[in-house]
């Protein structure tokens, strides 16, 4: 074994990340080679030096804030389960597939509302800011494994203003952002294998939600816009 090879693997050797045979080969070489031993000693000294830097500790106020926030965020979850159960109860008691899909939709509905709220709170509305559908649509290329339909609805009074990536119910989703005066409408889109459906209407924590499945895509529109206008928006988007 030559020193160049040893040098290449020295870090992994020191970190205990080499396979047994390579480890043995390097150990043999080190026994015989003083410069490589020195190199290892230097590396180990460097490691000790880094570890001598005391880690930063979370400030007490951060810990308190996170704990409080965790409880608040968490407490929204049982409510949601209850809401999903209520939806079930008033629905036709159906087959197991129906039960499962309703539960999943319940989760997604809460997630899209959370995504909507977060986008406004964190002022993270856009990854791509453009009123041009021909800019927004290609932007998603290579970032998602599907191509969301992107249409500008300015003619209907709902101009497209941009888009961003989201994670909804554990999957990547496209978020398209539309505007109506000062109101923001987030439309979340991801592939859905189920059959196309009509529009379901929900209100969650004061936000209006519209959901439908079309052409293999699940659509969720969320906004603080009033009910009538959001219905109008959903109609305009579906009519395209």
């Amino acid at each position: 074994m030559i020193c160049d090879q040893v040098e290449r693997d020295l870090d992994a050797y020191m970190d205990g990340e080499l396979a047994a045979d390579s480890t043995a080969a390097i150990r043999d070489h080190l026994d015989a080679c003083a410069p490589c031993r020195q190199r290892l000693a230097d590396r180990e000294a460097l490691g000790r030096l880094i570890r001598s830097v005391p880690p930063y500790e979370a400030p007490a106020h951060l810990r308190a804030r996170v704990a409080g926030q965790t409880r608040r965020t968490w407490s929204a979850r049982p409510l949601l389960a209850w809401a999903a159960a209520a939806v079930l109860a008033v629905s036709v008691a159906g087959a197991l597939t129906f039960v499962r899909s309703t539960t999943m939709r319940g989760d997604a509905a809460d997630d899209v509302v959370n995504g909507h709220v977060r986008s406004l709170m964190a002022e993270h509305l856009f990854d791509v800011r453009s009123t041009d559908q021909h800019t927004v649509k290609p932007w998603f290329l290579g970032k998602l494994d599907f191509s969301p339909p992107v249409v500008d609805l300015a003619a209907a009074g709902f101009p497209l203003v941009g888009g961003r990536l989201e994670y909804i119910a554990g999957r990547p989703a496209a978020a398209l952002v539309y505007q109506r005066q000062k109101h923001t409408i987030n439309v979340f889109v991801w592939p859905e294998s189920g059959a196309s459906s009509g529009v379901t209407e929900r209100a969650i924590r004061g936000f209006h939600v519209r959901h439908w499945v079309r052409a293999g895509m699940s659509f969720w529109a969320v906004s603080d816009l009033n009910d009538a206008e959001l219905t109008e928006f959903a109609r305009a988007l579906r009519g395209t």
Partner: protein
Amino acid sequence: MPSRVFEETVLPHLDAAFNYARWLTRNGADAEDVVQDACVRAVRFFSSLRDGDPRAWLFAIVRNTWYSRVTRRAGAETQPLDIATDDPADGALDPEARLLQQRDVARVRKALEQLPADFREVLVLREIEGMSYKEIAAIVRVPIGTVMSRLARARDRLSAVLKPPSVPMERLS
């Protein structure tokens, strides 16, 4: 599932998460924001933890949170994502004795902070958090081989930064 389960599983790693975020952001206030946002995400995605290691899982969320912040701000300030491409200055490392003499926390901190973010984080994850290459690869989302080479180059860089400017002996005389 009670929120207590989350608190008992995830919150013990808050200090470590903050330390990581602090090294990523190089700034206390930004680190607090990142950790707070990350914890909100952690609650929402708690079911994705399953049987995994909660610390590595939380770190991955912290990193994603930080990453989406810096990419959002890209161009607004310095580029924290600068990827080091140059090779280590030279192969000659300091003797251990000299390194030990420089046991000066502030100096090492500064040297670490000067490293590009991708170098800095692998050093922090490996040396301070004691994570395996596999864990680091999962958090940083690169192949294990990349972790290995990045760590080696990061150490080369750090050695070079910590080394006092070398003045040839003949010039001193």
